[in-house]
């Protein structure tokens, strides 16, 4: 082999750089693990005082944070978990069919030009900051939707979900869920669309060739293909709704109960909004408590993510 000495030297150096680069890449991977461990660790450390120390002062702190409505951590965090899941779940329930509809509209009904335009708009809306949805919800939606909720309550009030008295102004769970639905709608739509338009052409043509109508074609060849993707898109939206802070904070009239009466005020609160609302005035014991609720939220989103992973893994297999 022909080797000049300087070439051996550069090769030597290249090999060292090679090793360093690999170490960096591995390090970056491990850093991710460490970062997550650090998040958990710091949160636990910060939440620790909420569970240790004098039980009286603990109870005192909880009573102070909850305005006397709860006196134990579980009594405090329970309704918050309920409210978080209720609101996010409702938002998903409202947004999901509509997102699916829009995704189908973009992918299969709209003329090509319109659908590229729509796609762009949806992508933009998916990135609109939540504080703007909050602003819009609080200043535009709330004053204008009370009448609709009232109408709903008059006609469907026999269902406990819609029983009155209707909150006026409508700072109720229903309104917040609606705003969150509007917020996650573009996110779910955008992901769902990306998946649905990849549905194999072959099966669509097969369906049509059998004499299927457009909707039957979608049912036969598009939806089954996109199922797992649609689920993971919804989970993405659900995750966003679970963690949403500003929109809830700016709109909802909070409460700490296990009420399902969506149109009434002061029934529920979400963990994230509660942290943002109480953090500014919290003393150190209070901060510990709030961080502990944050940890609970983290666990909830973790579970949602994990389930989504399982579902998509199963459906994909």
């Amino acid at each position, binding site marked *: 082999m022909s080797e000049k000495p300087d070439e051996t030297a550069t090769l030597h150096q290249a090999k060292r750089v090679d090793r360093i680069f690999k170490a960096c890449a591995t390090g970056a991977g491990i850093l991710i693990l460490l970062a997550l461990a650090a998040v958990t660790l710091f949160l636990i450390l910060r939440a620790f005082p909420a569970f240790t120390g004098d039980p009286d002062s603990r109870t005192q702190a909880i009573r102070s944070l909850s305005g*006397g409505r709860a006196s134990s951590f579980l009594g405090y965090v329970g309704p918050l978990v309920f409210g978080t899941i209720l609101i996010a779940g409702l938002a998903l329930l409202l947004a999901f069919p509509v997102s699916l509809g829009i995704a189908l509209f973009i992918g299969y009904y709209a003329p090509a030009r319109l659908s590229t335009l729509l796609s762009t708009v949806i992508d933009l809306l998916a990135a609109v900051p939540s504080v703007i949805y909050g602003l819009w919800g609080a200043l535009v939606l709330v004053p204008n939707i009370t009448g609709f909720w009232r109408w709903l309550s008059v006609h469907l009030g026999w269902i406990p979900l819609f029983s009155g008295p209707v909150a006026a102004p409508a700072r109720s769970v229903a309104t917040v869920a609606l705003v969150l639905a509007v917020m996650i709608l573009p996110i779910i739509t955008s992901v769902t669309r990306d998946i649905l338009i990849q549905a194999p052409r072959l099966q669509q043509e097969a369906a049509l060739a059998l004499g299927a109508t457009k909707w039957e074609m979608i049912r036969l060849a598009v939806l089954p293909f996109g199922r797992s993707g649609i689920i993971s898109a919804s989970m993405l939206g659900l995750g966003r709704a679970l963690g949403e802070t500003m929109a809830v904070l700016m709109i909802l009239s909070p409460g*700490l109960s296990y009420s399902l009466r969506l149109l009434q005020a*002061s029934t529920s609160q979400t963990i994230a909004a509660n942290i943002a609302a109480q953090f500014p005035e*919290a*003393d150190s014991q209070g901060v510990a408590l709030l961080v502990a609720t944050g940890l609970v939220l983290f666990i909830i989103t973790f579970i949602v993510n994990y389930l989504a992973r399982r579902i998509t893994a199963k459906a994909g297999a």
Partner: protein
Amino acid sequence: GDNVPAASSGSGNTADQALFQGEFAGSGASSQQSADEAWIAGFRKQHPGARISYDPAGSGAGVNAFLSGSTIWAGTDAPLTADQLEHSRQVCGSGTAIDLPVYATPIAVAYNLPDLWPKGSGGHLRMDPALIAMIFSGKVTNWRDPRIAALNPGVNLPDLDITVIHRSDKSGTTKSFLSYLHDTAGSAWPYPAGENWPNDLGQGAKGTAGVVMTMNQAEGTFGYADAAQTTGLGTVAVQVGKTWQPPTAKTTANLLDLAQRDPQASQPGRVVLAVDHRTSREHTYPIVLVSYDVVCTAYRHDPDGSKARFAKAWLTYLLSEQGQRMAAANAGSAELGQGLRSQAMASVKTIGGKA
């Protein structure tokens, strides 16, 4: 860039400019934000070299930040607790921190009933503490309730449900208002005083602005808020003795002039007020939020003494007649009276060692 009037940059003597060169950060109660804006602008007219910031992060966060030594002063709606006072030794070079009243605002009991009186005639619904308590505890739920009508003869009250609006976040305003109810309403008010609203009636909203916005969004709402913010809403004339007092800066100042020092806050230098909600004096409005600034008389990490120097000058300005007038004009606060200001100034003079 900064919004500095072109002319003002030259004013102020140079020695003074050198004295207040640098960054001075405070944080705390959001109630003080508007006043602080005005004070910072006013203070910098005299000391253009000083760069002052105020983060309206909230009283709790403000005090926490102060106790960690990352700010020079904290604005808080609640005086320091014993724990916090003890903790303050770690940041203050000499003894504990002091808290001085700098800002007070009447808390209005407000309602959204636009058609009670012709526009601009300035009428106020009349209520006594028990009635207010009954509405806020859900015993009176309609505007046409005879108990309201009894106090307001001749007023054409609508047949409308009352929606109670209260603060949803922890707040000094809530605490002040609750202690007023607690002190005056007797058995009509079953809840203890605290910074969080104690029941699930009506609706909660974040911040004073949230309460006012919510009230403006629906007729028949009833709530409490810093009076300066209640533009567009009706305010209740509260029964004091035999008179009915609407919230004004003047009548609130009168209440503060009568206030005692809180016996539980007797540590040297502290000026903490115990407001007499049960007062029956004429021309006194009984519901008030008093907001304090917390400073050290000497700072632990303050090699050149600039922190103490600033704290002293800052509070001196805030407690000056000019400072109080600035706040009144721009935040709608009640000017602190001469007596109270001189009590507080006595403490200010001890900052940075001998006066």
